[in-house]
């Protein structure tokens, strides 16, 4: 049984085939409108989410399937003290596929151990978020035409930002990737992320200035400084405005450079950037539904002849 817990659970070839399936779904949505008929997706969201949960649900509905689940810990038996393992043992009786978000890191690993249906990690604390990574890869693939030989700048909260950790882990597998990490000292990427880049042989540079690195970038990936990842409020207030993207900073960007953001945006990207030709973060959210449709299909069809997984 294949699960998708970390971006590394999918090979480069499997990702390429998922992207191609995503392309085909975008081109011919009607051909997939009944692909998951009579199948059910359980969305187990132990912490709040708008985009990820809605895009999973929209993806399943657009495939002709059904959705059930909960959208907060309080609305589930976890509030009564039920373990993740027991919740999964129960939910798998009702659903063909599980998408799970949990505030604790590694919770989907526990879920996958006990599940007889595929589990998708929809975000575990500050750790991994593989479907956001697939969304990001889909965006780069659609907008730049290739995932190889790119210079990607990550800016903001690189310590707790799980989307950053997952995308770095995915992009370090493509030849010629150059990483430029821009963050305040307090929010530097964790050692294991930096170790992973070094071990892959990719180039990694760190900077404290967005302007200085802007001319080098093919992709600028902005992140939110998340209040819920901090143990104390004072640290959050001091660091949240550290790195803000505005239109003047983009004047130094290459013509084809794209600005991405996993959303929700707070104030790290000025709203005046939204209409700028570099901005792609709302398209990115749109691609998220299509690549999740591709992933759901691949997991439901796994093991069959010609299947992606």
């Amino acid at each position: 049984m294949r699960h998708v817990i970390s971006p590394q659970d999918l090979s480069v070839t499997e990702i390429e085939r998922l992207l191609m399936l995503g392309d085909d779904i975008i081109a011919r949505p009607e051909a997939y409108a009944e692909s998951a008929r009579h199948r059910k997706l359980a969305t187990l969201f132990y912490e709040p989410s708008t985009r990820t949960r809605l895009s999973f649900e929209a993806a399943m509905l657009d495939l002709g399937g059904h959705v059930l689940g909960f959208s907060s810990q309080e609305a589930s038996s976890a509030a009564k003290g039920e373990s993740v393992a027991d919740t999964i043992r129960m939910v798998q009786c009702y659903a063909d596929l599980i998408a799970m978000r949990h505030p604790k890191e590694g919770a989907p690993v526990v879920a996958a151990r006990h599940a007889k249906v595929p589990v998708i990690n929809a975000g575990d604390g500050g750790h991994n978020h593989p479907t956001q990574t697939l969304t990001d890869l889909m965006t780069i693939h659609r907008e730049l035409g290739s995932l190889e030989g790119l210079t990607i700048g990550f800016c903001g909260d690189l310590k707790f930002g799980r989307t950053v950790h997952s995308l770095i882990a995915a992009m370090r597998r493509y030849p010629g990737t150059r990483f430029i990490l821009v963050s305040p000292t307090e929010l530097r990427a964790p050692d294991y992320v930096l170790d992973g880049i070094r071990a892959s042989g990719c180039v990694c540079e760190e900077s404290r200035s967005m302007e200085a690195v802007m001319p080098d970038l093919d992709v600028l990936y902005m992140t939110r400084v998340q209040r819920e990842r901090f143990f104390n409020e004072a640290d959050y207030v001091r660091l949240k405005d550290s790195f803000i993207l505005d239109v003047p900073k983009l004047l130094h960007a290459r013509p084809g450079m794209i600005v991405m953001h996993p959303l929700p945006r707070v104030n790290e990207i000025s709203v005046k950037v939204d209409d700028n030709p570099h901005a792609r973060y709302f398209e990115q959210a749109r691609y998220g539904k299509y690549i999740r449709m591709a992933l759901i299909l691949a997991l439901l069809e796994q093991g069959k002849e010609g299947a992606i997984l």
Partner: protein
Amino acid sequence: MNIDSIHNGIVLDHIQAGRGIQIYQALHLDELDCVVALIKNVKSAKMGRKDLIKVDEMIGLDLAALGFIDPNITINLIIDGQVAQKKPLNLPRELVNVMKCKNPRCITTIEQEVEQIFRLTQEDPPLYRCAYCETAFRN
């Protein structure tokens, strides 16, 4: 000092000096009823000083835990007063319930039935990471 030879049992040799007590505790040797000798700071041509543990009974050993604490230990199995087998240790690929993850955000801090699993992600210097949250284990 005179320590009797053992007839059937195990000798853990080449323990880094000072680590003997850690091994003694990790293997729960205090719970055994047979003769157990922990000898500290024995002169060694190879190591200068070393610790040594003799157990006067054939017992099952947690080789993974032992390899994690000190992969340079040699295990001698003694049968009828002779060294019947010498077992070198390797760094275990996986450790189960040997240590706990210290990341307060890890699922292992709240999920009661979950085993504590660490995997070797780097050999030199050895580095183990939690199988759930990937946090590195540091002593």
